[in-house]
């Protein structure tokens, strides 16, 4: 919505990209949420003027023309520092633009700032960045969620209409839920990862955060598509948008009443509903963390090599201390899983759980078009709140095998790993998933998000479903005239 309004005004000549971007830059420079790591004023103004030139030549159209975008600081930008929230990359200036940056530029969007994030996207609370924590613009004193904390906060705080985040196990969906924004994790393989600082390559996905489904859909359309530079991107185009009819509803464990209510409200938008269950969300989440730590171990090794002086003495002394504590803990876990604990086959058991999760999800989607579930098992926590460790799934042989797996790895997992209980499974299976804010459902006024998940590569079906739900929840069937406060501030 915000995007289309800006874009139409710019194309029509009612305003200029330069003016829109200038206002966005002013807001970004006044960031009070710890959302922004760096602003590229000169570059952004120059790009905005180029957009205006192209518009005058009639060469640019579409919903992103002149739209200011902020992107998570783990996405490479040429000649512009890219830190991934880490000291290790404090002075890293990429020699190339990420594929998504090229695509945004081609669509006429203007990248204005790089946003704060948990170090190397490792965190769910927005607290592990070397550049300090991010505040939640919608819930003072509470976590905005992570790891795309700055992107979600920038949108929620009105600093930018849309942002790019990355989602490895929930890093777009969780902060979107906790800041009351819309966060979309596309199917694994729908968007190129070229230029994304890797964390867990087999689940890392870049996706948009915005104030409305229309905005994230517009950004997704610009980002999606094959890229010869990323072999994991699918060459086939995502399937068309058929409106889903049957929703599977997944509610599991001890959830706050407002979350359960919100999920039921969203589910009620679909003609048919059925209850679904995944054998063990906690085991799936643990398996995700095992995969992530194992892949992170090799993915982050390059930053160590880069940080080391080229002398024999330094290499004899051992590796430098260039990572923050949470990052270092996860890398140690990865090293253990692939090293001395290799014999326990924890990594391979995690891959088994991963396959099991994919199978269960296929069963669910054999009888439903869309899965509706919570985003997080709780509302935005205060910065010092932590969840108790997982309760064990019980009953049946398979469950006890998963129990063994959980017992074996739980002590090694991050403190807040259960934040990802409802998001990790879609990451493991590469499914598209979106967080929708359900307004006014928390008594304390805290944002509540609900998640919709679809079959892999049915991203557009999912977006169509999300658009339908948000329209029904707004109880407003003419969304063209709907005025969003966030949109009006740009022109």
């Amino acid at each position, binding site marked *: 919505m915000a995007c289309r309004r800006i874009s139409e005004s710019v194309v029509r000549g009612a305003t200029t990209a330069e003016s829109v971007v200038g206002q966005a830059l002013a807001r970004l420079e006044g960031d009070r949420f710890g959302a922004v790591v760096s602003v590229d004023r000169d570059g952004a103004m120059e790009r905005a003027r180029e957009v205006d030139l192209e518009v005058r030549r009639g060469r640019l159209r579409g919903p992103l023309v002149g739209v200011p975008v902020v992107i998570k600081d783990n996405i490479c930008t040429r000649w512009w520092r890219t830190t991934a929230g880490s000291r290790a990359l404090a002075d890293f200036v990429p020699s190339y633009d990420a594929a998504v940056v090229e695509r945004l530029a081609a669509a006429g969007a203007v990248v204005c700032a790089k946003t704060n994030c948990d170090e190397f996207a490792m965190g769910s609370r927005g607290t592990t960045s070397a550049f300090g924590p991010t505040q939640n613009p919608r819930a003072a004193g509470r976590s905005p969620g992570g790891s795309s904390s700055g992107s979600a906060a920038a949108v929620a705080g009105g600093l930018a209409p849309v942002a790019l985040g990355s989602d490895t196990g929930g890093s777009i969906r969780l902060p979107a839920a906790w800041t009351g924004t819309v966060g979309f994790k596309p199917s694994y393989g729908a968007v190129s990862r070229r230029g994304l600082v890797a964390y867990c*390559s087999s689940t890392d996905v870049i996706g948009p955060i915005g104030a409305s489904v229309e905005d994230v859909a517009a950004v997704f359309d610009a980002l999606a598509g094959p890229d010869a530079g990323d*072999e994991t991107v699918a060459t086939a185009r995502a399937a068309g948008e058929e409106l889903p009819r049957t929703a599977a509803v997944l509610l599991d464990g001890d959830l706050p009443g407002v979350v359960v209510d919100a999920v039921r409200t969203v589910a009620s938008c679909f003609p048919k509903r059925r209850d679904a269950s995944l054998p063990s969300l906690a085991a799936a989440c643990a398996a995700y963390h095992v995969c992530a730590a194992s892949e992170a171990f090799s993915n982050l090794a390059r930053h*160590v090599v*880069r940080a080391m002086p080229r002398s024999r003495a330094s290499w004899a002394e051992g590796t430098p201390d260039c990572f923050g504590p949470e990052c270092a803990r996860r890398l140690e876990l990865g090293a253990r899983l692939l090293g001395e604990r290799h014999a326990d086959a924890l*990594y391979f058991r995690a891959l088994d759980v991963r396959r099991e999760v994919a199978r269960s999800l296929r069963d669910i989607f054999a009888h439903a078009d869309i899965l509706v579930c919570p985003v997080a098992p709780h509302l935005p926590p205060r910065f010092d709140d932590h969840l108790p460790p997982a309760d064990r799934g019980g009953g049946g042989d398979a469950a006890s095998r998963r129990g063994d797996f959980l017992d074996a790895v739980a002590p090694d997992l991050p403190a807040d790993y259960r934040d990802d209980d409802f998001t990790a499974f879609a990451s493991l299976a590469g499914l598209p998933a979106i967080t929708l804010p359900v307004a006014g459902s928390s008594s304390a006024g805290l944002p509540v998000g609900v998640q919709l998940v679809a079959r892999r590569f049915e991203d557009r079906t999912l977006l169509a479903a999300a658009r339908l739900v948000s329209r029904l929840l707004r109880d407003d069937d003419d969304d063209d005239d709907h005025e969003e406060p966030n949109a009006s501030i740009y022109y």
Partner: protein
Amino acid sequence: MRRWRTVIGLEVHAQVLSARKAFCFCPTTPSEANSNTCAICLGEAGSLPVLNLDAVRVALRAAAALRCSSISETLEFDRKSYSYPDLPKGYQITQRRKGLGAGGCVEFEAEGVLRRVGLEGAHFEEDSAKTTYRGDAIDVDYNRCGRALVEIVTLPELESGSEAAACAREIQRVLRRAGASEARFEEGSMRVDVNVSVRDDDHLRPKVEVKNLNSLRAVRAACDYEARRQAEIYDAGGVVAQETRSWDGGETVRSRAKGGAEVYRYAPEPDLPPRPLESLVGRSVADHVDALRREIEPHIPAAVRARLRKRLDPLAAAGLVDADDYGRTARVAFFDACVAHGAKPKPTAAWILGDVAGALRKLEFDTIADSNLSPVDLAELLALLDQGTVSRRAAKDLLPDLLQRRTSSSVEDLVFERGLARISDVAALRQFAREALDAHPNELAAYHAGKKNLEKLFIGKALAASGGRADPVLMRDVVRDCLLQAS
């Protein structure tokens, strides 16, 4: 003192012939240090590998040529982690779970014995950067980093340094014949690691790896040295540490650069999803490998040697095959063509390996195929020689002309044009004999005084006076006749 037997396995790394690197688009042409680099091969954050399909196809030729018994249906890659400046990503992309091919064998001759050594298999991986040390500083040249390698691992079936070297040499030949690699030690496009251990009776001791041997001589010497070192330690009641060592030219030393036993933390490479090989070669893998084998097999040294041995002695067969790495089978093809034109196999081989090779060297031709000598020419020349139309000496004198000739006249015409035909006219021969006798009065006197073996000298001088064209048998008679007359 116990009797120790040496057990050696080879790991051969050869750079695959390809215009670009394994996982990026950088060229592989020699150039200034660190100029052939990009975000991908420098491991810049966010960069992703893009598989060079062409390099895989070429590496497959190596797997087919080495007779790998099972060629993998899918390409899968793994990460091998270690931390060193020569590996900017902190891991090497390699194939751990499944290589290009498993099994296979190499046949070669070592000290006159025909040997056959099994292979564990061949796999595709990327090369590391080249490091050099300046005191404490480590200089890194990333031009080599990310180049496509094929690694060939033999079973531990080699029993001496010279066998190990012969096996490495044969693998080198096979790679060159298959068009898979230049495989030059001196340029680093082939490197060998050896795993050496010793055994007494049936107890195999732990192996020691000696890395980065950059010549066949180093392979032989390092294996022999290491086996002796281990035997001596065991004889003295010691224990050999399982470690990585390097060869300094005289002995193996514990390798400090990359430490001893390493944990490589292998894991699947998530950036390169498994890819069906069929999609790369455009037909079924089995069909493709069959076609490759049909194409390459006739050039594989062991097969060619076996074929040639039916007509030639082993030394000549080996000579034709062995001296000829890059020109594939230039010499063998030339030999085959000569024989097809009616030349006798044995003299043909002898000429190709002897006089022709010498003339090529003198005129700085790399291979016989680079010269203008055609198989028909050589067959014709040998026939003229056989008929007695030209002498051996005259035939040899004609070679440089044939190698460089621009005309297409027959060899026989050339022989007469140059006046190189054999002289059997007795009057002419007598003339040469007289000259020889007249030129050596002292020797003639000695001959008549009883030194009868000086006859050979006069025959030789008379033949020389004819420019080698005189019929030697007739000349002997003529010289004897003249000596009798002179007395």
